[in-house]
């Protein structure tokens, strides 16, 4: 398979770097393919718009930074505006429908869901927003297997939080299904 470039964007503290790591590990360790994950560093990465990128490929990954994006996830308006320029024409954009009010125009496929609210209301923990997003994303992108995603999540989240995170993933996955069905 050709390379698949993903960017997860939002603001510092939303757990997107962890999400990136999980996605990459799902692909590379559990699906046995290759994946590289990068992110921005330093004080600039603290507040404001932040991002994590994952490139997935079967063969060796040359250029490690995301180039033409196959998928962009945006949890804030600022990050959506700032980071959507590289999205492919036939790419996928997933946004938090309640926060990203003005997604850019383009020929890409746009999927909007109230991701943060799902975490807050359906799971009751805003910290699992990233996992909800991963559920949606993996369903829609179809680039990693569901099983690998679950394994990767369980290997990464703090002990004792496995259940709630699985619930979050389930909710996301379900939301993804709904979005695809629409």
């Amino acid at each position, binding site marked *: 398979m050709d390379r698949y470039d993903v960017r997860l964007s939002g603001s510092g503290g939303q757990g997107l770097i962890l999400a990136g*790591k999980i996605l990459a*590990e799902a692909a590379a360790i559990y699906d046995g393919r290759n*994946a*590289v994950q*990068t992110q921005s560093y*330093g004080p*600039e990465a603290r507040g404001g718009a932040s991002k994590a990128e994952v490139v997935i490929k079967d063969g*060796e990954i040359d*250029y*490690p930074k995301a180039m033409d994006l196959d998928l962009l996830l945006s949890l804030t308006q600022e990050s959506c505006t700032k980071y959507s320029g590289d999205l492919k024409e036939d790419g996928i954009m997933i946004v938090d429908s309640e926060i990203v009010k003005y997604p850019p125009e383009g020929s890409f496929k746009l999927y909007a869901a109230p991701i943060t609210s799902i975490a807050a209301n359906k799971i009751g923990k805003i910290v699992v927003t990233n996992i909800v997003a991963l559920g949606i994303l993996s369903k829609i992108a179809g680039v990693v297997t569901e099983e690998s995603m679950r394994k990767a999540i369980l290997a990464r989240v703090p002990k004792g939080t496995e259940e709630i995170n699985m619930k979050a993933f389930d909710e996301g996955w379900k939301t993804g299904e709904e979005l695809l069905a629409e």
Partner: protein
Amino acid sequence: MSNDRPGKVRMMQGNQACAEGAIAAGCRFFAGYPITPSSEIAENLSVMLPRLGGKFIQMEDEMAAMGAIIGAALTGQKSMTATSGPGFSLKQENIGYAGMAEVPCVIVNVMRGGPSTGMPTLPAQMDVQQARWGAHGDRGVIALTAKSAQETYEQTIRAFNLAEKFMTPVILLIDEITGHTTEKVIIPDASDIEIVHRKKPDEDPENYLPYRLTDECVPILAPFGTGYRYNVTGLCHNETGFPTNDSHDIQCLIERLTRKIEMYEDDIIRNNELMLEDAEIGVFAYGSVARTAQAVVRMCREEGIKVGLLEPKVLWPFPAKAVFAMAQKVRAIVVPELNLGQMAREVSLASECRVPVHKLGRVDGRPIPPQQLVEKIREVV
């Protein structure tokens, strides 16, 4: 890369791979001073080393960190420090000391953009000439590079091996991209890893000369505390290790410090070649930029442009022979790098005017994307 070798598969950052490589190489002493984008090397080792009985210390500054690893190395420990440009500048005096006193140790520089504080969180390759010439005085230098987490793991091990073999500080230059990119690393079984330990003296303490002149040109320094009492100094010294002002002794010493690297060049240098056999355009690229170049070689070939890649794994000693060989084959050489042509000048020198050498320097803290290099090559064609 080594995806088909058996071993444990893990996802890790280049910086973590460096720490893992150090442990695998037998490093049991790390002294450092935090600096972005290298700090994760220290952080990982601060957790790992005490578990193995090894020692981690965060020193008060970079001069101290460099001094501490030299001290530790003299007790027989494999020792390492890690830093980035500003700290690398500060370590130079003591790196020179390690060169002069012939103390094996490893210095990792995870390059950011400079000069000065520059771009602490963005990549560059602006310290490659500094790795060669950063310290005052003449001596040979070994500097390796790596382009991925896997290679960082392997090259860290190699850095220790070369340090122990040639009794010299060895520099590993990676950049922020390599240091901070998380990717797959296959950790081989310990038994599959080649590990070199420095030689031990085989004569009695009475007959021992720490800096004995031999054909090998590499001294044998007994670890402190093992019954061989001798003197180590940064002053010019003779075979005994004591300071000297004797003209012959000094000329011998200074020449040997360069020769001991030069004479083993073929041993030390390693290159990777990609489709160079029939290439018309040669690309010389190292570190993270070599990944761009790999992609570009394939892209250009698809376009019908015969591009090949020479990718040095060792920057110093410079792979002049390989460059010269390439220069005899190709019509032009392109050198993409994250600086304004620091290695391009070496390529020019080594290609002995056989072909034009084109530089492509990017210094805005961004990697060179494949497209940019492709365009440069199209221009050259």
